């Protein structure tokens, strides 16, 4: 378990050792109590949704949409299959929190899913697990088997008349499948190409049936909301930003890893928990919410607290809570080049602005990084992102554009320097010093 630190942990409380993922261990931590309570206290689906609404839990997958509200969109009463999907396709660069939840606390995810299914009248569920974390897919299947055997999943759960079948589905290497409709296509056995919305999954989802998709961390929070109460969960965070949150801190810090802290914790605190900037160097910039979020320069970032509202005020997004820390050794052109390559490589190829635009963006930035940029390039980049943003089927187009726009906004001089001098503002040996690969072994 790579949760390296926490403040008032809830989701990750008690997660030390290798066996915390087992059913017995989870139950000893109070697991499945919330589910039992539903049937013991005859909580109606409406009660459950009300509690989740009270908690102001906002989706942890990136968009921060209020979970309770989302659940209320499901046409509960409609006959026929309804689906609940857990999105564990964590592929947003910088994000690795769901992996650790699946590793240490899979039963919290399962319990959260069963409760969510109960609240929405879902009959079947799938957990879509990122292909590269294969061992956790296998672990999840084992945990599922435990839960099934114990009567927490399947027909007539805990003797009630509520039934919910749950399965694991693995990805196989496509970032876009984290996008909820691409994920649905993928489960249907197709290429992961997002669908145009509307119709929204709540009315036309998996196999054309009503479907709700939630992030792993979102669902893992649900049992705790029921056990501690919506109000308490909200208070564990900050107004309008309910609960605790896992932050994945990566890049130039001394102790990269996951940290569970209350929403609203100052960034500086989080940075400190992660051991501060590597080698005591100077912080240059932070991408606070996964690679798609706009980059924030150091000074602005140091004033932020870690919650949706504060980060938004700084012109970025809390996103998935992936904090990518860059110190003074970072060449911002090279950093953006790598991100742009990612979006170009991961575009599903479906819609024109993204398919063509991401390739074009990358090619220009690659040229600049390689000393072949021309002054008009920056203008062109700006214009292209304008032609991509808001014009695509899914948000990958926006995700590819926001880094470009923000890097250009905050670090334009570095790009200009590259174009004028055909080399980097940050000397190469300084850049090298940023990586610990060779030094760590020394």
């Amino acid at each position, binding site marked *: 378990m790579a949760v390296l630190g926490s403040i008032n942990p809830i989701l990750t409380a008690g997660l030390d050792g290798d066996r915390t993922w087992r059913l017995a261990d989870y139950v000893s931590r109070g697991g499945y109590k919330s589910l039992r309570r539903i049937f013991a206290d005859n909580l109606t689906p409406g009660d459950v949704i009300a509690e989740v609404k009270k908690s102001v839990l906002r989706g942890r997958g990136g968009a921060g949409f209020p979970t309770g509200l989302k659940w209320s969109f499901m046409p509960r009463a409609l006959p026929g299959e309804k689906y609940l999907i857990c999105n564990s396709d964590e592929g947003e660069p910088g994000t690795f929190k769901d992996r650790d939840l699946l590793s240490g606390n899979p039963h919290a995810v399962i319990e959260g899913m069963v409760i969510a299914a109960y609240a929405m009248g879902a009959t079947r569920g799938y957990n879509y697990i990122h292909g590269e974390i294969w061992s956790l897919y296998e672990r999840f299947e084992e945990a599922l088997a435990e839960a099934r055997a114990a009567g927490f999943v399947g027909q007539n759960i805990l003797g009630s008349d509520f039934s919910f079948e749950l399965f694991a589905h693995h990805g196989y290497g*496509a970032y*876009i499948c984290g996008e909820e409709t691409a994920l649905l296509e993928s489960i249907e056995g197709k*290429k992961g190409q997002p669908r*145009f919305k*509307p119709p929204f999954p709540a009315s036309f989802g998996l196999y054309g049936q009503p479907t709700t998709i939630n992030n792993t961390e979102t669902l893992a929070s649900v049992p705790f909301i029921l056990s501690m109460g919506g109000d308490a969960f909200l208070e564990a965070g900050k107004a309008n930003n309910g609960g605790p949150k896992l932050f994945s801190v990566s890049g130039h810090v001394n102790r990269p890893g996951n940290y569970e802290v209350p929403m609203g914790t100052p960034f500086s605190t989080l940075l400190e928990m992660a051991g501060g900037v590597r080698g005591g160097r100077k912080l240059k910039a932070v991408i606070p919410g996964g690679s798609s979020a706009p980059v924030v320069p150091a000074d602005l970032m140091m004033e932020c607290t870690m919650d949706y509202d504060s980060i938004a005020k700084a012109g970025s997004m809390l996103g998935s809570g992936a904090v990518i820390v860059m110190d003074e050794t970072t060449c911002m052109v090279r950093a953006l080049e790598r991100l742009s390559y990612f979006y*170009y*490589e*991961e*575009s*599903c*190829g*479906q*819609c*024109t*602005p993204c*398919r*063509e*635009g*991401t*390739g*074009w963006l990358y*090619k*220009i930035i690659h*040229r600049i990084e390689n000393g072949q940029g*021309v002054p*008009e390039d920056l203008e*062109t980049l700006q214009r292209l992102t*304008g*032609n991509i943003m*808001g*014009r*695509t*089927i899914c948000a990958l187009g926006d995700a590819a554009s926001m880094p470009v726009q923000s890097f250009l906004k905050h670090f334009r001089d570095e790009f200009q320097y590259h174009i004028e001098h055909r080399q980097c503002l940050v000397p190469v040996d300084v850049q090298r010093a940023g990586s610990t690969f060779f030094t760590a072994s020394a």
Partner: protein
Amino acid sequence: MPEIEIDGQLVQAPEGATIMEVAEQLGVYIPHFCYHKKLSIAANCRMCLVQVEKAAKPVPACATPATNGMKVFTHSSLAVKAQQGVMEFLLINHPLDCPICDQGGECQLQDLAVGYGAGASHYQEEKRVVFHKDAGSLISMQEMSRCIHCTRCVRFGQEIAGVMEFGMANRTMHSEIVTFLGRSVDSELSGNMIDLCPVGALTSKPFRFAARSWELSRLPSISLHDSVGANLTVQARNHRVMRVLPRENEAVNECWISDRDRFSYEGLNSPERLTKPMIRVDGQLREVEWSVALDYAAHGLRDIVARHGADEIAALAAPWSTLEEMHLLQKVVRGLGSGNVDFRPRRYDYAPSGVPAGARWLGMRIAELNELDTALVVGSFVRKDIPLFAQRLRQAAKHNGTRVTLISLGNDDPLMAMHEHVVVAPSELPAALARVVKAAALQCRVPVPAGLEAIVPDIPSEAIATSLRVRGRSMIFLGRVAVQHPHAVQIHVLAQHLSDITGANLGFFGDSGNIVGGYLSGALPSARNARTMFTDPRRAYVMLGIEPELDCHNPQLTLAALRQADLRIVLSPFISEAMREYADVLLPVAPFTETSGTFVNAEGRVQSFKGVVRPLGEARPAWKVLRVLGNLLNLDGFDQESSEEVRDAVLPPETLIDGEFASGLDNGIKLPIDPAALVSAKGVFERVADVPIYFSDPLVRRAPALQKTRDAAPPTARMSARTLAEAGLVAGAPVRLRQESIAGSGEAVLTAALDDGVPDGCVRVSAAHPATAALGDMFGTIQVEPV
């Protein structure tokens, strides 16, 4: 109904309509590539972005539902900017080779680039290169770098053709259209993807580099290949047909045509075109002047009448002849005093004389196929027999939940959801239908028709009967096999009973292009029909537009009769090897593109057309040739000035329904059921003959590109594993097939092939192919032995 405003025009939008659909209705053009009214919405090209009041971003018109109070701006600066942005992206990787592109002049991308593209590209990077591919002889994939990823072709395959042959492999800008393992595209509707491709990525292989689109004349015409009567646009240059495209007619062919309709034009300029009249002199065919040939023909006919009587004359017209041609042919024959005339060369079984043969037709309008609740199709290789009916039923099954049932002689996949698919041997077909009739009678508690006493319904027949009975609009269709079957009349009688019992209507798919026109033309026999004129050989034959050795039910019989005759007059656009052997007079007549005329399609729609090019060489329209012949024979009533005059005499305009449909069509039959027809053959092998789609008529047989497709592969002797074993054969080995008829015995050596879709005890041997032309009846007994 939501009310929306588009560019200031207020309009009531149909419930659930998209902005694009409403705009189309209004006549407001919104640029687009991926959107196509017949395909599902992909919204991937993003060309149709428009501005909607209060929306933060431009929205794709093709995918955005029109909602009440919506205000749409399709040409505001925001919309145009968005569209221009998309156009720029589309062009960066697109080769700018319009001057040499086959699509030049008819390219949606080119058209829109002029309107929305910037003058010069800002794109300095290297363009993507996509390798060319081979998809068979019809579709060229030589220039795949031009693909703009609209996926219309992929969706067409999945949704319309019913088979996904194209896919989009890979992701990112490296996505590309592929077939699996570079296999050929084999759908009988594949050419439509050429039309759908908005750029020059998928182009017509036969047409490639043949002409520039703006050099071509475009004239309307009608396809002769099947009873759909698909509406065509024929494009020509210098009096040569260069290309055939669908002409949209929602009620007939929608915007589709089959590959047969599209690519058969290549046969028009076949080296086997007959371009000069010929007569046989001293055993040799000699080219002669028209007047000489016609004189010879007239003389010959008069001579036969004088010496042997008019009853020694028989005439057979191809069912793809025009209404006018068939009418004048029968007029000549009747004028001479003979009643031996027919237009149904593939038919075996005819209603006894005295039973009126009404003009058999679809029994409803073609467009209604999509609205049926139940369709029972009896005896049809439906996909290949009549591709566009299959396509409509496919859509009906998919979108309307139509229950489609097939009782057929092979399990060829119709590529649609089937309610039931019953596969039987030819001799069991009447009994299979009889079971449904009996099941229906029992279910409906009406008296079981006499003759069905011994019939026992089984589970499928019960299900089929129920499906016809329970809900909505039901039809029973008789397909090509049903009318060419040795018990065609009994099958018809059984279907009539089923219709009477269940209330489902009865219809005929029609086994050829102008079959309904044939019934209306008067070319029905009053003496010998298309079979008895050969079983009881005559001294003189007049053949119009067919190759009897390939187009008759029993070529063996037909050839024997022709060989013994004294006079054989052939009116044909083509000359075949067999004709060189037997014809005494060869009169070059014009194919459909070189003459005016009328086809009446399955639904009774009277479709007249004009020639689009002038006749090749000395070929002449057959109606004119027959008129002259009538005059030379001093017969009355051959002074028509135009084909229209002939048509109006046959189908007086005032008798047409709604001015376009023939009246008086009738599928009724009243005959007793004959229990002898319900007994299946025992202890013999039975032949199952399909008429392969690209061998169905002389024109398509001469179309080179179609002849290179998989559907044009030479016939094999297809048998189930069990039949192979029973016959002592192994797949791949040569097999000798023999069929007897009163004219003697005929044989063919083919390769044995394993096909478990063929009923046990049957051998599937296609008709209409030179390799099987020596054989006999399409569905008779056949002897099978290893070579």
